[in-house]
């Protein structure tokens, strides 16, 4: 059909319809889509938290959104912002460029925002049922939070007069300010969670009685039973076990300690005890003795470093043989050199040495105290978590265990399918896989004090940061921007794959088919 000659314009006018009628999406045999690649921080997170997502929200100053994402995995960012060891920071890809993102500071900032901008959850008029939780440590609190959120009436039983379990009694004030914990607990009470302090299950109340009164019970009593060492003199006065020592300090009492203090053990309880002892009046010399080398210490390296900085003396490869006394008073610890190898521990008894001391703190391990169960006969279903199950572990691990228990309890009561936890064994996005060349305005930058600016440094490994590179480099204009998010337009995408290749965060994958 020849084009018409129009009189008005006096030239051949053709091509007046937009080519958008031509749906070039039909050419495609590969389709880009948002991938599910793990970032190193997400992969190493003990809570399985979607760190890149809440960093992205903080970057845009959307604090409420950040809290909402955070609370899916971790209801207590104010607490973990202080006590978590943040393996995420260690593994951050940005570390290979300039400096790791300070995820801890941002997590803490979200926690502070939450404490300041708390809003009570909107709940059903009638609770779905009553749940009892035994133990008010991080596992119990997290389970209580999630069950309360789901509409259950939750009562938490605590043996001690102080609520918080290990958070209140085990972790020293300098690592977790008590004000933060109290604020967090106040919010939980505000939510309607009941706390019964000073009630030992297994003694004051039987576990079976709880089963009679409540729909379901979650037991998270922790690992509070200190292991014994069988060293002569261990039972003398002036020898503490680390948990008792820490609990006394943290509940405001002053345990008797005479300078110099020796701490035996290499875990976090040992380092906490050493650093707490150093803060006591009249204590100037604290020595930590561990039977293996420094790199083998199970304690968090940052904590060990801090202890060293504060002046705690560290002795490695030494095993206590005997605690020496003069009358009833401790004078010294007799130590042997020892070596650890694959075969085990070899002790060299020929070169014993003395370390003078007035107080000994034993921190050689904790175990679960099973007395809570009494001589209970087969419960139908038993939910338990935290250190009680895992043995001494960390606060984030306990919070995760509480979260999973809450999901399990809901699944049991409501008949929901149990959600499978995402496998953390998947390989994370490597630094070398990131296409940083296509990142616009990427500058080397050290840590920023402002949380939003700091979150802006996140490279967003494996997740979309809405940078718009896919939009910029699409030859077919097949990427639409909707409210600041980018979306593929399947009508026009020809499947060239430029967006997948150029995405600086490697957030896209190519999928076969249309």
């Amino acid at each position: 059909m020849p084009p018409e000659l129009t009189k008005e314009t006096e030239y051949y006018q053709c091509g007046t319809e937009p080519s958008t009628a031509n749906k070039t999406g039909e050419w495609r045999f590969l389709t880009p889509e948002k991938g599910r690649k793990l970032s190193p921080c997400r992969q190493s997170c003990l809570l399985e938290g979607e760190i890149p997502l809440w960093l992205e929200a903080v970057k845009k100053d959307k604090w409420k959104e950040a809290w909402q994402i955070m609370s899916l995995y971790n209801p207590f960012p104010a607490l973990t912002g202080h006590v978590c060891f943040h393996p995420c920071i260690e593994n951050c890809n940005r570390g290979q460029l300039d400096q790791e993102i300070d995820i801890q500071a941002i997590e803490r900032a979200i926690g502070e925002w939450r404490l300041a901008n708390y809003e009570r959850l909107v709940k059903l008029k009638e609770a779905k049922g009553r749940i009892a939780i035994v133990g008010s440590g991080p596992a119990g609190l997290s389970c209580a939070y999630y069950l309360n959120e789901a509409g259950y009436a939750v009562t938490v039983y605590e043996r001690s007069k102080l609520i918080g379990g290990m958070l209140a009694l085990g972790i020293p004030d300098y690592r977790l300010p008590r004000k933060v914990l109290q604020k967090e607990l106040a919010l939980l009470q505000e939510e309607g969670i009941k706390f019964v302090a000073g009630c030992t299950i297994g003694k004051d109340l039987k576990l079976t009685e709880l089963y009679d009164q409540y729909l379901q019970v979650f037991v998270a009593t922790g690992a509070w039973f200190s292991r014994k060492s069988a060293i002569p003199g261990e039972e003398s006065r002036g020898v503490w076990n680390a948990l008792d020592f820490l609990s006394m300090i943290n509940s405001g009492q002053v345990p008797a300690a005479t300078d110099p203090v020796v701490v035996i053990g290499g875990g976090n309880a040992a380092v906490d005890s050493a650093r707490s002892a150093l803060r006591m009046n009249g204590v100037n010399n604290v020595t930590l003795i561990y039977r293996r080398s420094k790199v083998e210490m199970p304690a968090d390296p940052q904590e060990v470093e801090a202890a060293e900085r504060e002046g705690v003396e560290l002795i490695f490869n030494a095993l206590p043989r005997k605690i020496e006394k003069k009358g009833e008073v401790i004078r010294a610890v007799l130590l042997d050199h020892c070596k650890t190898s694959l075969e085990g521990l070899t002790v060299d008894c020929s070169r014993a040495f003395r370390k003078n001391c007035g107080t000994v703190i034993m921190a050689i391990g904790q175990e679960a105290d099973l007395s809570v169960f009494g001589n209970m006969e087969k419960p139908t279903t038993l939910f338990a978590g935290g250190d009680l199950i895992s043995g001494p572990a960390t606060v984030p691990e306990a919070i995760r265990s509480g979260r999973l228990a809450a999901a399990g309890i809901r699944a049991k009561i409501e008949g929901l399918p149990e959600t499978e936890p995402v496998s953390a064994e998947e390989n994370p996005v490597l630094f070398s896989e990131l296409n940083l060349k296509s990142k616009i305005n990427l500058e080397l930058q050290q840590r920023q004090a402002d949380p939003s600016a700091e979150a802006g440094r996140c490279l967003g490994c494996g997740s979309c940061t809405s940078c718009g590179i896919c939009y910029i480099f699409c030859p077919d204009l097949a990427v639409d921007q909707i409210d600041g998010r980018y979306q593929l337009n399947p009508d026009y995408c020809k499947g060239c794959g430029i967006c997948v290749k150029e995405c600086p965060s490697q957030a896209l994958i190519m999928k076969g088919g249309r």
Partner: protein
Amino acid sequence: MKIDELNRESEMIYSGHNACPGCGAALAVRYLTRALGTNLAVVLTASCWSIIAGMPPFTALKCPVLHCPFPSAGSVGSGLKRGLNAKGLQDTTVIVLAGDGGTFDIGLQSLSGAAQRNEDYIFVCYDNEAYMNTGMQSSSATPYGALTNTAPYPLFKEGQKKDIMQIMAAHGIPYAATATVAFPEDMEEKLKKAKEISGFRFIHILSPCPPGWGTESSDTIHLSRLAVATGFFPLYEVRNGVNWKMTVPTDEKRIPLNDYLSGQRRFKKMDEPRRQILQKEIDRDWESLMKRVNNSK
């Protein structure tokens, strides 16, 4: 360029155009029309874009398009601009879009004429280094050693790529610049500069062609970036034919040309001596460009 402000409406081309997946030319025209604004008239000579722009009644460009014969791009552009001026439409920016065939070979005489007369429009050559639309025949923009359908294996393209930028600079035109699709900001900035200048302006754009070069369609941007990093296609501008200035600095220690060649099927069978020759050619051109840039400082 603020990415948040860009959307389908602010672009000057439509989706649904007929370019191959991963087309560098489609991207190049998308960037340059966006930079030039809405008051625009495009002259299209025979090239890939004659097809990409669509069959009547469809059009992929949001501005008037005038198709013209192969050798006449330069003169049709001159005529259109003068015609618009005569009608009182001086504000309309006229751009001529030509491929490397329509610029380096067939269109060279009318291009040279228009440049010599200093006609007031922007001539854009999007260079995919062969006659890709008609079936990958060699042009004088095809680099030494590449395989094309007129130089199939065991033949190789002979002779070096024509230095069109020096030819255009020799005309003493007010503005000439190179650009490529991996650097959209650079390209838009150059087009905006060019828009402000009157007289003949020439933009040479390297636009990778996945089917013609034998590359993955997803490699377009990557290759374009490598072409700059190897010194194969330096990004610079020339004012009045004498003032040479680099716009995207390339490291003095350029990466080896092999990195750029190895991803492309057209260079796959190129033997080592030929690679050496091409590398030397690039090195020599780079040095002479650096001399010109340094002399202009």
